């Protein structure tokens, strides 16, 4: 498999979405917003808000953009291009997954140094790494799910509708978790999202990384490491979505 930066599909999105003017605008607006929040709330709160924004906004952006992308190719009749070139389904999926939400990814990467400042306020590097690892795997799951929606939807309206349902479900998920107060004994399925991990990070900023990695959720009556459960759930769903995509993306119409 070719490296993502040499993947033609990813390069196409990079060229289309990250021209100098929009790139500079995204970086400037992201920093401006952080500066405004810092001015109002102080640096410590800003750092946690940035991590929270990454945790919530990036999956939503990935999900919403991916849930339109293949439908977009079909509506604008560029879908046939994929099926007459030698790009493999794996390359197309990777190119779409990491290419379509590039502007959101850029906004996160450009403000990542602010999140790293949390280490200076006592957050353990391992906890922060685990949190962002969960954000990444969750984004992959949501992105692949979005691509599945956009492949099987029959119209923009339908894919947009399904994406909205997804988005609202995610928000409700987050609210549900917030009401449950902690992920330690929370509804086990919630560990598929990175929000329980963010909550733990927020509630115990000084805890070492192992306490986050060893926190448990109840799977039935059995306590299971939350992080492990989250990874397994995400891999299961991503794997399922990936199979659906790879088997159908270059399939000829019957």
């Amino acid at each position, binding site marked *: 498999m070719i490296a993502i930066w040499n993947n*033609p599909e990813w390069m196409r999105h990079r060229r289309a979405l990250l021209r100098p003017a929009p790139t500079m605008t995204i970086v400037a607006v992201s920093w401006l917003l952080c500066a405004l929040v810092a001015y109002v709330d102080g640096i410590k709160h800003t750092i946690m808000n940035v991590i929270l924004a990454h945790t919530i906004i990036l999956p939503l952006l990935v999900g919403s953009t991916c849930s339109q992308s293949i439908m977009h190719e079909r509506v604008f009749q560029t879908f046939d*291009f994929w099926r007459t070139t030698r790009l493999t389904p794996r390359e197309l999926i990777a190119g779409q997954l990491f290419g379509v939400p590039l502007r959101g990814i850029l906004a996160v990467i450009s403000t990542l140094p602010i999140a790293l400042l949390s280490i200076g306020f006592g957050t353990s590097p391992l906890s922060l790494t685990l949190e962002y690892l969960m954000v990444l795997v969750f984004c992959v799951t949501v992105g692949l799910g979005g691509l599945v929606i956009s492949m099987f939807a029959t119209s923009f309206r339908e894919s947009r509708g399904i994406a909205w349902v997804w988005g609202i479900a995610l928000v409700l998920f987050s609210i549900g978790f917030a009401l449950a107060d902690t992920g330690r004994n929370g509804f086990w399925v919630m560990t598929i999202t990175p929000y329980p991990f963010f909550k733990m990070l927020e509630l115990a900023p000084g805890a070492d990384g192992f306490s986050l990695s060893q926190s448990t959720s109840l799977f039935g009556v059995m306590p299971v490491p939350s992080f492990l459960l989250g990874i397994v759930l995400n891999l299961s769903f991503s794997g399922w979505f990936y199979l659906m995509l790879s088997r159908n993306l270059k399939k000829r119409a019957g």
Partner: protein
Amino acid sequence: MSNLVNPILKFEAVRKDFGQFVAVQPLTLDIQAGEIYGLIGPNGAGKTTLIRMACGLLAPTSGRVYVNGIDIQQRAEAAQESIGYLSDVYALYEELTAWEYLDYFARAYRMPADDIPPRIKEVIRLVGLEVKEQALTKGLSRGMRQRLGLARAILHRPKLLLLDEPASGLDPKARRDLRDLLLMLQAQGTTIVISSHILAELEGFCSRFGIMELGRLVRSDTVSGLTSVTGNRRTILLRWLDGDVERVKRTIERSGGLVTAEWSPDHALCTVNLTEDQLADLHAGLVRAGVRVVEFVEKKRTVEDLYMNLSRHEVM
């Protein structure tokens, strides 16, 4: 067509149904390497369906399609290496420049990295888009979009070029340029299958024609082969001076070959069924009868005339 030995594209009893609707009825056709094959027929005749099956975008309901000897149903990607396809819609990636658009496809076709920039330059020059190389494709005119699509289709030097209505929407100069480009590609050994419902677009440069109607391949032959079917039927434009139209009528009717005629006081357009010898006798007879003939021209039979004679004029 079974005597052709080296078909680069072979349809073997191919049929395509969409539900109850039969888009292509069982069709067998060989297209030999180096040909320019014109696929003509009205809208809805099944041309696009046939081309989409040839490039592996549609699976036939029954039958087989072979490209360069490879069964496209079994090994689509291997077969598609030999194919350049231009669809009848002007779809492009709107946010890319013309150069970036071609670069994307060069990489997607797995062209060697060193070969990509010079090849892009070459095809951009071939289609005459040098001045738009760095322009976003969304700003290109219809004709330019079509030319960029063609550049994309020939970028990876395919052996077989499948063009679905490539000239529709092009101005006369662009059509002539397209024709010159296709002839040049043919000279380089590329086989071209080109469809159109505007018959004049294909006339003069196709080696063979296939006439499709209602999903059937009504006939597939060279222009001379198609002409022979229509026998000695010819259209004559006749013009005379100071004339007596009745005398002209009588003389032509006496020839025995008159089929139809449109009469005017000083000219006529007649369809006759006469050999070349009989035609010469008719001309002499008109002169002998005192008709002052100033024009006696056999109107060249166009592919359109042949099509009108051969097709069954069924409408979808």
